[in-house]
């Protein structure tokens, strides 16, 4: 064991804290996706933007106003077909003041074209599975360095993906929550995404966004569905 790394019991405890935080976000999102699908299926007649807003906004309000919560913004994005053939519909808000994001796009008849290429929309729609995008600079909503957790919404178990629900978590907020645990794991402990890109690192020479490598013999701990903690990382 390297002297800069804590005992494996200590590591397991602190890696577990971070895993619980991220898994909590993922579970909350999955539950929201299920509720949204049920509520959309229960809407009688044509689905309208107003009805979607009414369904989504109260949940976003609760998420972004949770004290010490990780969620900076959240919402729903309709897949083509729910409101119209080429039409999407974005019901997304951010910040404590609930800024309505990208709402003017809802007036464009070809608004779906605006989102189809985005990883956070495309992957859950194509695979029918939840996804995490990033960390990346989010030009559409926050203009910050973020992780976007997205989950497909189904009205029927065997039906098409009618849209996605998602939550933006800024790397800045995650760092505040994760840094203490990482420091206790090791001086060079690093939270990475599946590409090996650092999200938060205790090492001074590894910044968020840098590609890093696991040091030989370091321990690896899963954090949520996609992320890992390396007890010791090296800069590339």
């Amino acid at each position: 064991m390297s002297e800069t790394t804590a005992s494996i019991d200590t590591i397991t405890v602190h890696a577990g804290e971070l895993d619980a935080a991220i898994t909590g976000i993922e579970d909350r999102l999955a539950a929201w996706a299920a509720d949204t699908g049920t509520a959309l299926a229960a809407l009688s007649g044509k689905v309208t933007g107003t009805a979607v807003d009414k369904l989504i906004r109260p949940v976003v309000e609760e998420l972004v106003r949770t004290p010490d919560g990780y969620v900076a913004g959240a919402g729903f994005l309709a897949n083509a077909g729910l409101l119209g053939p080429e039409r999407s519909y974005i019901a997304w808000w951010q910040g404590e003041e609930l800024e309505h994001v990208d709402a003017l796009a809802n007036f464009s008849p070809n608004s779906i074209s605006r989102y189809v290429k985005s990883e956070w929309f495309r992957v859950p729609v194509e695979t029918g599975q939840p996804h995490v995008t990033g960390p990346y600079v989010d030009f559409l909503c926050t203009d910050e360095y973020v992780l976007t957790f997205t989950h497909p919404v189904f009205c029927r178990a065997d039906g098409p993906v009618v849209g996605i629900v998602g939550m933006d978590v800024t790397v800045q907020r995650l760092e505040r929550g994760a840094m203490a645990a990482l420091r206790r794991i090791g001086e060079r402990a690093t939270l990475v995404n599946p590409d090996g890109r650092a999200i938060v690192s205790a090492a001074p020479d590894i910044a968020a966004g840098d590609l890093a490598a696991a040091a030989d013999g370091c321990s690896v701990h899963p954090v949520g569905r996609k992320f890992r903690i390396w007890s010791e990382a090296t800069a590339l």
Partner: protein
Amino acid sequence: MLLTPQSASRSLAAVFTPIKSRGLVDEVCGRIEQAVETGLLTSGQRLPNETELAAALGVSAVTAREALSQLRTAGIIRTARGRSGGSFIADNVLPSRERALDQLRDLTRLQISDLGLHYQAIAAACAGVAARRSDAADVATLRSFIPTAEADPLHWRLALSEFLLEVAAIARSARLARELIRLQADLGTLTLLPCADAGYRTTTTGLLLDVAAAIEAREPAAAETAVKALVAATTDWLLTEQSKRY
């Protein structure tokens, strides 16, 4: 061909975020103009009424009404009365050479060269960091923004701005990306002018390939040099054009 909104999503992005700052009427107008330039709103399309527009952008109905009035005066929208009435995006509203020339005439050489220096500094910082942080997917996306030499000036202008925004995205710095967006807004439609010149397009294609190659090869110094040359190609073209006035 115009870039479709999906490939231009980032330059559009700033367009639709709620507005809080001063100059609200100008901001609303600017965003609608940008939405038209990037193809999200097209000629003949009906605009939301002032109540809907106000709600969508988080401004007051008064601000929305003033913005619609200003857009009408500028010829960007036209208003029809009656049952099928409302505000519509006018025909021939895309950024024109005439508007760009007007903008160039308002600028001094000092303003152009100083803006060029600022743009070079930010773009070079982005390119240097991007060369350290890029992965294979990043480089593939970056190359997808390199336009063909035959593409029309409007397409070229959008593609160039998207290419540099992608360099900022690869650098993964929110501050540098925001600064780059601000600089591109300052340049406005000016960049349409060199894009109409075949010689400029040929030179620029080579420079875009150089930037992408240096980022792919993870050579920060080469990436910085290439991106500075790319910005200089634009500033030099504009300075040459501007000097013809005298």
